């Protein structure tokens, strides 16, 4: 057991940091601060192209699929660093969708989709949840019917984040209406610009944009189906494990706490220095202990992945731990900053331009997004300890 980076891992981390130093420009920071990821054709797009040129979208893919053949630890270190810097890195298309194509796709699926994903040319929005199928995902109703050489798709998806920036939908559909629940589900890739796709924005409390997407007689070639028909449930549960692993590194938490340590030593508007309070110092220490553990959990999950196993239970633990910790840190920050903490996001009077005011509104998302923490607790009990399903 070893928690310290070896020579080669340290060199990798240095390379990632150098890339970020060179490419996270003031212009990129300004665009991200003003528009998040929603400014088409600007600095974010340029930054993504540079990541693509480095081959980092496929960094842990096998070389035969155009990847760099590096491991999960490399991937984790990179993601962690990007999160620390607050810039967009490899997204779910490369961390969750592509590995499922490699694992379960037909040869045609692989040659058609993997090379453009590796170059960053294809970005998928993940279409799982529906208005009547959220936590109970197996209840999904969006239908795909085979008509001649095409699938014809009808239905709706919700919480379809990033659809406005995506080129394609990684869509979970019912292909056999007579099979029960988990059986009869398939995965089909659908170009977002197909006739009959309609995207409606939903804005969240944090300002985050997600979408409701409607599919009305949308037609795609039969070959857009991934792997085998009616086997999609296995694919997406595997993809969800990878998604949770990718979503749950502790880079942003480390950054938030570093920022908070810094703010705690500066006088607030009324002259109070938060770090002089014993109670707040104690809460900072507890947050410090928890962020350290969140970091170790990320190392553990990456080490397990590198040993060839999908760490289903471990990423559930990690996802619950990091998401609840994010909320605790946001809460601590607002308690620590007092009224200064409520100066609004993007206002220049606010400490760190209101980073923590927004974090308080952003943190609830990850407690239910990517699988509610309640269902993940069921997974820990049932898959980790063999406790019986209660009929979910």
């Amino acid at each position, binding site marked *: 057991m070893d928690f310290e980076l070896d020579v080669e891992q340290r060199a990798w981390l240095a390379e990632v940091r150098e890339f970020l130093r060179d490419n996270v420009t003031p212009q990129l920071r300004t665009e991200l601060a003003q528009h998040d990821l929603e400014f088409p054709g600007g600095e974010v797009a340029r930054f993504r192209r540079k990541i693509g040129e480095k081959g980092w979208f496929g960094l842990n893919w096998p070389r035969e699929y155009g990847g760099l053949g590096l491991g999960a630890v490399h991937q984790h270190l990179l993601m962690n660093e990007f999160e620390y810097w607050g810039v967009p890195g490899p997204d779910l298309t490369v961390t969750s969708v592509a590995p499922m194509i490699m694992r379960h796709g037909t040869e045609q699926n692989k040659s058609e989709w993997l090379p453009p994903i590796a170059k960053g040319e294809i970005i998928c929005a993940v279409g799982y949840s529906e208005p009547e199928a959220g936590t109970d995902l197996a209840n999904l109703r969006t239908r795909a019917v085979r008509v001649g050489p095409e699938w014809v798709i009808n239905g709706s998806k919700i919480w379809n984040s990033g659809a406005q920036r995506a080129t394609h939908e990684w869509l979970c559909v019912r292909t056999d209406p007579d099979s029960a629940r988990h059986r009869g589900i398939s995965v089909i890739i659908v170009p977002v610009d197909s006739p009959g796709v309609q995207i409606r924005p939903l804005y969240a409390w944090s300002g985050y944009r997600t979408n409701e997407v409607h599919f009305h007689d949308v037609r795609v070639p039969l070959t857009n189906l991934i792997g085998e028909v009616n086997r999609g449930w296995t694919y997406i549960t595997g993809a969800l494990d990878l998604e949770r692993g990718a979503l749950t590194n502790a880079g942003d938490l480390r950054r938030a706490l570093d920022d908070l340590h810094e703010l705690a030593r500066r006088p607030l508007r009324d002259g109070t220095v938060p770090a002089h309070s014993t109670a707040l110092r104690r809460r900072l220490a507890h947050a410090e*202990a*928890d962020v*350290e553990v969140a970091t170790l959990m990320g190392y553990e999950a990456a080490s397990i992945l590198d040993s060839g196993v999908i760490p289903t239970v471990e990423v559930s633990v990690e996802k619950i731990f990091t998401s609840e910790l994010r909320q605790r840190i946001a809460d601590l920050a607002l308690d620590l900053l007092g009224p200064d903490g409520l100066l609004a996001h993007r206002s220049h009077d606010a400490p760190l331009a209101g980073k923590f005011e927004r974090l308080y509104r952003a943190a609830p998302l990850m407690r239910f997004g990517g699988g509610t923490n309640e269902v993940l607790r069921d997974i820990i009990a049932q898959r980790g300890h063999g*406790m019986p399903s209660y009929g979910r």
Partner: protein
Amino acid sequence: MKAILTSEQREFALSLRALFSAECPVSLVRALAEPGADRSISTLWKALAEAGVFGLAIGEEYGGSGGSLDDVAVFYAEAGRALCPTTVHSTVLTALAIDQLGPPAAKAAWLPALAGGSARGTTALYTARDAAVIAPVLQANPAAAGSWRLTGTADYVADADVADLIVVSAKDTTSGQTLVFIIDAHAPGLSTEQLAMAGGHPAFTVGFADVAVTADGLLGDGDSEPSLRRVANTAVVLGSLDLVGVGQAVLDHTVDYTKLRHQFGRPIASFQAAQHLIANMHIALAAARLAAHSAVCRIARGHIATRETAIARMHAATAARLITLDAHQLHGGIGYVTETDLHLWTERARLGSTLGGGADVAASWLEESMDERERR
């Protein structure tokens, strides 16, 4: 970085589990807590000595197997799971203290017997309430020919009744320096009196009335404070792994019980409320395990590792409390009666998360390390 146990470590853990299952049944643990019990545990001791447990991280030249502190960590987790008598831990820690503090001559003199299991030891190097308090409680008065006379009282010394030697720190009355000595536990002037503690924990008040020590009993002097802190941190972190083992045992027992116990026509394990308590226990244990192994890794690389030690103890103490108390809740009445044995682990958890310092004390160490980082 490879943050999972190696296959060798997993095999070692399994072999220890088999050893404890054969040689350390709960009946033995219960018998040891009875007044007047024979605390020599000779069969278990012999089996552990043959398994090389006492010299895991001691160099081969001193009779150990030349492994690392990581291996000791694996042992501690299994020992906690099996409620292994603490006299084993006390001897392991004595050897580690001598190894970390002593000059080669002292190591050559003392380590082979400890590492081979033919001698037993204990230590009094920090206060039981707060392991960061390493200021000596004993006084060392210089006597003739480089020898010393020790006076004072050390409190909460574990397993002093079965120890052959005790490693203590004492303040040089002339120079004010902190010195470390190895004392014969049967030396004239040394007295032990047992403290009656929860769970029958064998702690003693050890009195030193002008106990004579010759020059070769002096283990270290001068700038021993950082080294003593590292020894204390080693003990706290390994103790945290004992708590991880306790937590794992309790979690496993509790899951088994919820599957067997039926109410409303179904196992209580099928209720989501029960599953979520188990999941919370699992999460707390995962945090404690990772934090403890990471701290061991840091200490093994020669660091004092106060930050990592603090984090390990905060999480281990918190997890041990949560797991044992929620285990009682899930067991209900049947876990409350002593014939179920659950309380034995709960008492071990409470002792382990008190001795050396609990979560609050450990949080103060972390604050100390946070302040140091700010000053840099």
